[in-house]
């Protein structure tokens, strides 16, 4: 149920973002870009929500109970780490996904702020926020 809701949310966000970047106003385009990049971030994040229970820090106590399934590939049975086959209890949340999402968020923060400054400059130079009027570069 939760996964379905999450998928629908991501799909909606992609739709909203795509709609926004097709508008003519520069600020709407920038906002659409932000929404799109956050929906991509959510998509990465969603691939890690697989029902793990513990934080991925292996203490000695936990290490005794692990079967090592997370870090080894069992290629004969088609098991690919860290994807765990059905029926096996997954102990940890996938830590990689959170690192990836954090990196992507930081990068989208930087590009968005640069884009906002740029749209301010476009407004100052052209005196409009309508992109259909910002077209001096025509060969």
């Amino acid at each position, binding site marked *: 149920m939760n996964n379905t809701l999450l998928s629908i949310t991501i799909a909606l966000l992609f739709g909203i973002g795509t709609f926004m970047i097709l508008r003519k106003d520069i600020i709407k385009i920038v906002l659409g870009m932000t929404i799109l*990049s956050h929906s991509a971030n959510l998509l990465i994040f969603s691939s890690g929500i697989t029902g793990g229970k513990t934080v991925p820090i292996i203490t000695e106590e936990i290490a005794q109970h692990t079967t090592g399934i997370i870090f080894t590939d069992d290629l004969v049975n088609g098991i690919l*780490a860290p*994807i765990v086959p059905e029926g096996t209890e997954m102990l940890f949340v996938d830590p*990689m996904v959170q690192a990836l999402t954090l990196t992507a968020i930081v990068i989208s923060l930087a590009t968005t702020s640069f884009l906002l400054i*740029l*749209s301010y400059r476009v407004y100052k*130079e052209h005196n409009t926020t309508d992109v259909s009027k910002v077209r001096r*570069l025509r*060969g």
Partner: protein
Amino acid sequence: MDMYHNIPILLVAVPIFFAAITVFLRSRFKLQKALNTTVFAGLFIMSLALLLHVWENGIVVYEVGEWGKYGIILVADLLGSGMVVLSSFISMMAMIYGQDYMDKETALDTTFFPLFNIMVAGLNGIFLTGDLFNLFVFFEVLVMASCGLIVLTGRGDHTPMLYKIEAIFKYLVLNMFSIIVMLTAIASLYATVGTLNMADISVKLAQLSAAGTMPWHVYMIALMFIVVFGYKAAMFPLHFWLADVHPSAPAPIHAMLSGMVIKVGIYGILRIHYLIFPDVLFLTRPIILILSLVTIGVGAASAIGQYDLKRMLAYSSVSQIGYVLLGVGMGSVYTTTAALMYLVNHAMAKSMLFLATGETLYHAGTKDIRKMGGFIRTSPFLATIFLMGSMSIAGLPPMGGFIAKFVVFDSGLEAGFYAPVAIALLFAIFTLFYLFRTWMTIFWGELKEPENESDFIARSPTPQIKVALALLAVAVIFFGVYPEPLFALASEITAQLFDPQPYIDAVLGGQVR
């Protein structure tokens, strides 16, 4: 651990380190000049040493943080290190050239050196990384640095700031969109196989494919990567931004963008689709082949109608990248070798032509071809360099472009692609026409304004600029008269591409500590 083992990380870390140093040294221009020339020469020598070492002894793998295949790894195989050598050579020339070309107050004393260093770090990172997410990060590094470089001004750069702002707005928005597509593809791939290491993904997808349980969305992911890299390489439906963005950049940056940065797309297609998606090639090859033919046609046809010199050459870049994609799309071993040779020769000749163009525009004081004429009297040096560049792009002997065009057509005929080769040949004649018409208009005939002759002569290239142009010209002629080493290297790279097992063994052979 021998010293070659550390070169991949140095090629990325040294430019980033000096980007920080040059921020602090920005008021000391003489020191900056010497320092940056040394650093870029050092990078070129290091990359050359790496290429020779890889050619002799096999693939070099550097594990950042020693996390094995779970961490970020840098892999220097022949394709990666070869591209790094090419990009180091062109960036060294652009750096030597740019020190005299760029405006002192607004570019050299502010952001030119740091951003150029970061751009080179991004390029080297893209070519060397073995991790899919890391590839995305380096793409962003490259894009942000080149956005900052496009708005800088140089002396032969007659683009007002108004236009530059508009150009980088387009560049950044479209790039962000392509990056989001890439991120979505990477996320889907990670959710499918649970790893980001390219060699590891390759092994796992091969296993899924052998077991017959390849999920259908892997095909979609492969096509999404075509969109991303096609955008970077300016493949036909995604080529429209290039003619606006590249001509707005000052000449050294224009040379880097058109010479190296659009080749990143070709590199990505070769790396991702041959290593990770060899099972989807039956689908991607025809797409690339058809789109490359349209790219050649659209680029050449658009270039003919242009009177703005830089814009015309930008459309020429679109057309030429089509020839590289044609070689990739035809898909036999020989055609891929030909595509790689075309890539190298085009990168050299095009960056030389763009550097010469920047000086020509400064010399003429305008960027409209119709207002120029007779400059062979006032600057025979520029006329020679421009002619050599045009000859190489148009494919006339004894320049490198002749050999490149010859092997592309020869390999295409050998593989039985008669109609595509015929179309490409037709547009090669277009290329010859528009480049030589331009050269004749600019340099041949009478001076349009004889009373300004002393002004033109006063705006001649400085010795440093001449050195950079002459070195590039030597390289272009060298690969024209003696292409055997390049051909041997390209064949070896293609062999590695078609059989990625050594790459996979080198990456996954190490133990996880």
